[in-house]
């Protein structure tokens, strides 16, 4: 089996491992790919004669799986990509038997590109790059014939390296085509917030350590107790759960494209139409708008990682002044009577909403509430009553929901906000610090309407467990609940992970999130608004890159030819003779030189003649060209001769 096939097998193995970890493979492909890989490792006549049947079986299996998956129409792309991955494996198997592996390399490259549509984090991209490098090395091996693996990898890496300036020039400067159609997105790697807030939902979500978003700040980050990142604003309460309710008219906020960016967000894929933000400032893109509830609305789920900036406005947040509607006061009539009675009693005590808020605060503090990840099941009917007055064990959504309902019962407009609180401050070496938000930072809190101040955030969880807000979720839980969060990795691993996250964040922000608007900003900076020169600049940049690459190749070739390994070994072997002042004369052939040297040192005649014999045999007897093994043999022989010559030279000098 050729080296090229081995490299392609390794590339397929890496691709499979990457796809397996990220969970995009159909079970059929997850099993079939390594099975086919194993078959390709040891080509057998039985496999060769049944290649068509194997292909047919794979196609049939794929078709059955794809039909099953078609209940969700957005999965057609995943089905198609799985087919390409299967085809890449089959092509590799086929190439081991009859065809040139070239086409297998090309299908594998396509497969790598398709894998890139699903996985864009740095580790996946590095794996994809390694797979692509192996494919290129396989193609080089096919053309250049047998050669040492190190030489082959060096050649392939050189090719890779010299092409990078051209890639960068094209990537940064060539005009980007607009999307012609929309590919369905990635479903398996989405953050866990949902449109409907059920009791207990966040408690299970926080047990996941998946990354939700990363934020970089201009200046220092806000203190922990002010790190509230809103995503969804729930206004409609049906007695059991909270939902966003009918869509609110969007506030008349214009995106500011060139303001000072206060926060740069990098958000993981999500099935929500809403994006996290702090609630202050404005987005720097027209794709995002702020609704009157203070949500950052994108209109579509986030299929790939997305980034956006929040810029300073210099004035207050308009959404906070949007007056409440009847929905913000509505409570289902036939539910939670005890909660309503409590709210009414507070209403009787004071007409001032701030005073009523204070009463609520005192009441929450006076009750023996327990903050837990395992609150137990609440009855479907009157569940807030059951929580507030009976169980008194709950997670943040229980407190936020019951407090908002209580406020409505006291005639204060209130709503539940779901998002993230806190985060993990990461300070990687050599890169900018950022705040990492995980699913475990998911949180719910309330907002109430105070006539003079507008919508004000109130977090009843912080009344019950202040550590939740000031420190972390883990600090606010008891020991048994902490175990539900899972074991924390050792400190050194956390440091490494933090560094890696930092690199990944930069990679995402600078490379993966580079889109047409980022290109516009770059070109605006480069060309000072002279966009008509974009094409020319791109062509010139690619031309410069190409010229540099070609020059580099010529220089490398020249250096390599000067460093012919056989010649180096020969020169090395002749050093002992040079110590005896026997050196090759200009124009003298090796054979002539050896004869002359043999005359000068007759006792070493046979040894010296062997130099010429071995070298010329390597140079001229090898057909079509010397192999690496022959070179190795020559080196060993010349080294042995050199050792004997050294021994002779030392002996001579010792006698002298």
């Amino acid at each position: 089996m050729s080296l090229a096939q081995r490299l392609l097998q390794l590339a397929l193995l890496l691709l499979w491992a990457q796809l397996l970890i990220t969970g995009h493979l159909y079970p059929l492909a997850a099993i079939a790919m390594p099975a086919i890989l194993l078959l390709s490792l040891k080509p057998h006549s039985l496999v060769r004669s049944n290649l068509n049947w194997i292909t047919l079986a794979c196609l049939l299996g794929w078709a059955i799986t794809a039909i099953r998956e078609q209940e969700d129409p957005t999965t057609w792309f995943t089905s198609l990509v799985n087919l390409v991955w299967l085809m890449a494996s089959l092509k590799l198997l086929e190439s081991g038997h009859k065809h040139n592996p070239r086409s297998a390399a090309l299908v594998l490259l396509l497969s790598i590109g398709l894998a890139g549509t699903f996985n864009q984090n740095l580790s996946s991209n590095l794996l994809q790059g390694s797979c692509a490098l192996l494919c290129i090395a396989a193609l080089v091996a096919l053309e250049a014939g047998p050669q040492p693996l190190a030489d082959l990898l060096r050649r392939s890496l050189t090719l890779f390296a010299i092409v990078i300036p051209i890639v960068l020039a094209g990537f940064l400067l060539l005009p980007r085509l607009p999307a012609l159609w929309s590919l369905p997105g990635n479903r398996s790697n989405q953050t866990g917030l949902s449109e409907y807030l059920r009791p207990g939902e966040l408690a299970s979500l926080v047990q996941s350590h998946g990354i939700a978003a990363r934020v970089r700040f201009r200046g220092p980050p806000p203190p922990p107790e002010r790190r509230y990142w809103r995503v969804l604003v729930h206004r409609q309460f049906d007695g059991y759960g909270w939902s966003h309710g009918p869509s609110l008219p969007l506030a008349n906020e214009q995106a500011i494209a060139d303001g000072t960016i206060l926060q740069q967000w990098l958000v993981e894929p999500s099935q929500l139409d809403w994006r996290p933000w702090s609630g202050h400032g404005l987005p720097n893109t027209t794709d995002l708008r702020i609704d009157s509830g203070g949500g950052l609305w994108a209109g579509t789920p986030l299929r790939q990682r997305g980034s956006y900036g929040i810029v300073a406005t210099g004035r207050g947040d308009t959404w906070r002044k949007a007056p409440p509607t009847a929905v913000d006061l509505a409570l289902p009539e036939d539910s939670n009577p005890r909660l309503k009675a409590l709210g009414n009693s507070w209403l009787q005590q004071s007409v001032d909403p701030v005073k009523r808020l204070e009463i609520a605060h005192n009441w929450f503090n006076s009750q023996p509430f327990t903050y837990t990840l395992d609150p137990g099941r609440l009855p479907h009917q009157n569940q807030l009553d059951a929580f507030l007055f009976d169980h008194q064990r709950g997670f943040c959504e229980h407190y936020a929901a019951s407090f908002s309902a209580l406020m409505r019962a006291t005639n204060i407009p209130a709503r539940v906000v779901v998002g993230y609180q806190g985060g993990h401050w990461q300070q990687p070496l050599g890169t900018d610090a950022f705040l990492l938000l995980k699913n475990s930072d998911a949180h719910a809190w309330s907002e109430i309407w105070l006539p003079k101040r507008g919508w004000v955030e109130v977090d009843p969880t912080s009344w019950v467990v202040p550590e939740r807000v000031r420190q972390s979720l883990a600090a606010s839980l008891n020991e048994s609940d902490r175990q539900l969060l899972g074991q924390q990795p050792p400190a050194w691993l956390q440091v490494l992970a933090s560094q890696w996250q930092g690199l990944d964040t930069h990679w995402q922000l600078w490379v993966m999130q580079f889109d047409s608007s980022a290109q516009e900003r770059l070109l605006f900076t480069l060309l000072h608004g002279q966009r008509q020169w974009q094409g020319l600049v791109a062509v010139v940049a690619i031309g410069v890159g190409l010229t540099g690459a070609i020059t580099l190749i010529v220089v490398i070739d020249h250096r390599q030819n000067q460093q012919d390994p056989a010649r180096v070994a020969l020169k090395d072997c002749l050093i002992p003779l040079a110590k005896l002042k026997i050196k090759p004369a200009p124009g003298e052939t090796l054979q002539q030189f050896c004869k002359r040297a043999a005359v000068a040192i007759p006792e070493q005649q046979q040894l010296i003649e062997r130099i010429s014999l071995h070298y010329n045999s390597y140079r001229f007897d090898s057909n079509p060209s010397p192999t690496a093994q022959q070179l190795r043999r020559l080196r060993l022989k010349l080294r042995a001769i050199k050792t004997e010559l050294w021994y002779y030279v030392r002996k001579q000098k010792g006698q002298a």
Partner: protein
Amino acid sequence: MGFAEWWQGLQRRLSRTTPQLVLGHRNLYILPSSFGGLWLLSCIVLYLIGINGGSNSPVLLAFLMAGLLLISLFLTHFNLQGLKLEVLPQRLGFADQDQVYAIKTISKTWRPSIKWRWLQPGAPEQQLQHIRPGHQRLELRWHTHQRGLHLPGRLLIHTTAPLGLFRCWCYWEPPEPIWVAPARQRGPVQLFASDNNKAAQLNSATNKRSGSELFEELRPWRPEEGLQRVDWKARARGRGWVAKRFSDIGSSELWIGPAQQLPFEIALEHLCDRLCQETAAGNAVGLRLPNNTQLPPANGHQHLEHCLRALAQLPLPRCP
């Protein structure tokens, strides 16, 4: 004019007939290979997937592949550019046998995967060579059925290295002809008596003969005589290892010519084989040909080559 004729005419126009050829811009041609076409298509597909899926990974891979395509245009050209080819004196060969056409390559750089193919029907398949820096003698396989003095025809030199995305090629017609002797075939030849003893012509089919020599005696066999001389019948009958000994006709000088009762070309093939055998055995042999050409008996490879050339340049029979 058909396409095939037009194509052949174009190839003739593109090929160079010089004893030395330095490959460069004026004689090298380059076009994407079919694999290069598929590669470009894959780049476009990946780019479209990237921009429509909102993902930069496929876009980067598409640019990487496009960059490699662009670079390999030059690298493939460089693989042939500057290579110097020279014809070498050719050795005589035999019809119906693969023979070598020797050329010399002079290169400053290592050039992987250079492919060579003779553009003639029935030519051996493509040959692959890696050219190393310096001078290198290349022996290209060549084949013909016809004896005579032949020009080898057009040679296609091409490469697809380093990635197989482009195919760069040139045509060369090496002007050095190659002598082709008749094919070697064992069979009867006409023997002539030596001029010294004026012996009569002997027929080639006598009872005592083995090949064209006269059987003289049996004697103990020595390994250096080779197995051809072993009397296998005697060995089978348990008489031990004995060798047949043959004697030349009358003297050590042997004159041979084409057997007259056979078709002329076949007779020449027998003659060719016999000449080679006698030379290998170290016997002096003379040649008498129908066009009154006579090469006096001698031995050695130079004499053999003269004889074979004489056979090669005999007029070919006319087609009926």
